């Protein structure tokens, strides 16, 4: 009987490869939406505690990204958009990515629990679990509703920010959750319309692959029609001022107009690309307006 061992080469992974594992672009959106959740929450948070909360949420999001890349290395290698990620390129081994992800996730959750509060830590742990186990391991490869349900993971950061500030939850952070939850499908389906061949090659059942482009366009419009009023809701419910309300109505209108153009588009993907690009700007502007609306109060509350 002979035993053979796989030859393990010493790692050539640099710091940049580990940063890439954490999906910095996703992380930036997470940290921004969590910051808004933290700032719009009532009461006062000490800046150091607020900073630590944001740091833990950011590291937790990075950990989830690394664990996603660890599990999805096989399909990442088959898609042009993701083939240059550290694991498919051979810069980081799957084991290294898993170890990195689990270590960061543990540190982020435990630190948030010990230094900020247990509710925020529990929500962060749930978010990481949902993104890795529910979305990555289960839904992504099995249903075209993958990004609809999985979008909950990306929608939770403002709730974690709110929980970090107050130690409780309320209707307002749930509203922020709903905005990101209903924003995710039109955003990703706009992308998948012009990347459907990539997804089909990797065997991922995205909506355009399974149900076709026409149905995807219809669903994009449907979700956008729900999203635009939700974006205005913080003003309608009295959580934000009229400047926010006017901005939300304006950019919501642009988003609906772009979704209608996607619906009418028969050739090419110009409208889909425009909708994808504008959807990022839409979410950023919406949350930035909320931040601007509340920042003076938060600052004066602190210095009063």
């Amino acid at each position, binding site marked *: 009987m002979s035993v053979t061992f796989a030859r393990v080469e*010493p*790692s050539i*992974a640099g710091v940049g490869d*580990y940063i890439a594992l954490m999906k910095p672009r996703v992380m930036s959106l997470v940290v921004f939406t969590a910051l808004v959740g933290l700032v719009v929450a009532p009461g006062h948070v000490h800046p150091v*505690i607020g900073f630590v909360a944001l740091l833990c949420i950011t590291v937790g999001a990075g950990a989830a990204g690394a664990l996603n890349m660890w599990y999805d290395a096989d399909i990442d290698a088959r898609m042009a958009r993701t083939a240059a990620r550290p694991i498919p390129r051979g810069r980081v081994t799957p084991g290294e990515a898993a170890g990195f992800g689990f270590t960061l996730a543990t*540190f982020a959750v435990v*630190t948030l629990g010990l230094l900020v509060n247990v509710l925020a830590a529990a929500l962060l742990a749930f978010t990481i679990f949902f993104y890795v186990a529910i979305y990555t391991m289960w839904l992504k490869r099995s249903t075209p509703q993958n990004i609809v349900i999985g979008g909950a993971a990306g929608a939770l950061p403002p709730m974690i920010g709110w929980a970090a500030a107050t130690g409780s939850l309320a209707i307002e952070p749930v509203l922020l959750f709903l905005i990101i939850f209903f924003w995710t499908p039109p955003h990703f389906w706009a992308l998948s319309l012009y990347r459907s061949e990539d997804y089909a090659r990797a065997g991922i059942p995205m909506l355009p692959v399974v149900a076709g482009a026409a149905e995807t366009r219809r669903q994009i419009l449907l979700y956008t029609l729900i999203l635009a009023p939700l974006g205005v809701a913080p003003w309608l419910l009295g959580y934000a001022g009229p400047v926010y309300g006017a901005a939300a109505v304006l950019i919501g209108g642009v988003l609906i107009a772009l979704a209608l153009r996607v619906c009418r588009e028969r050739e090419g993907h110009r409208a889909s690309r425009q909708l994808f690009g504008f959807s990022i700007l839409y979410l950023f502007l919406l949350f930035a307006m909320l931040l601007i609306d509340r920042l003076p109060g938060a600052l004066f509350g602190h210095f009063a």
Partner: protein
Amino acid sequence: MSTVTDAMSEQQRQPKPQPQGIKLTEQQLRARRARSIAIALALGAFVIVIFAVTMVKLGSGALSGADTMRPVQTTK
């Protein structure tokens, strides 16, 4: 007997083969050094975070421990 001893001492005189081990390339050494520095910085940052939060949580009382040791004044 002496023949056996001679053979053993002869064996001991022979230079022992050095273990080959893994020789890291220049690129691997550079990558390892960069990773080590990043881990050191991350640990340093973690220590600073814990220190800062400890100071915030203890508040101003952290630096005036002597005051807290005073016996409580009671009025009769």
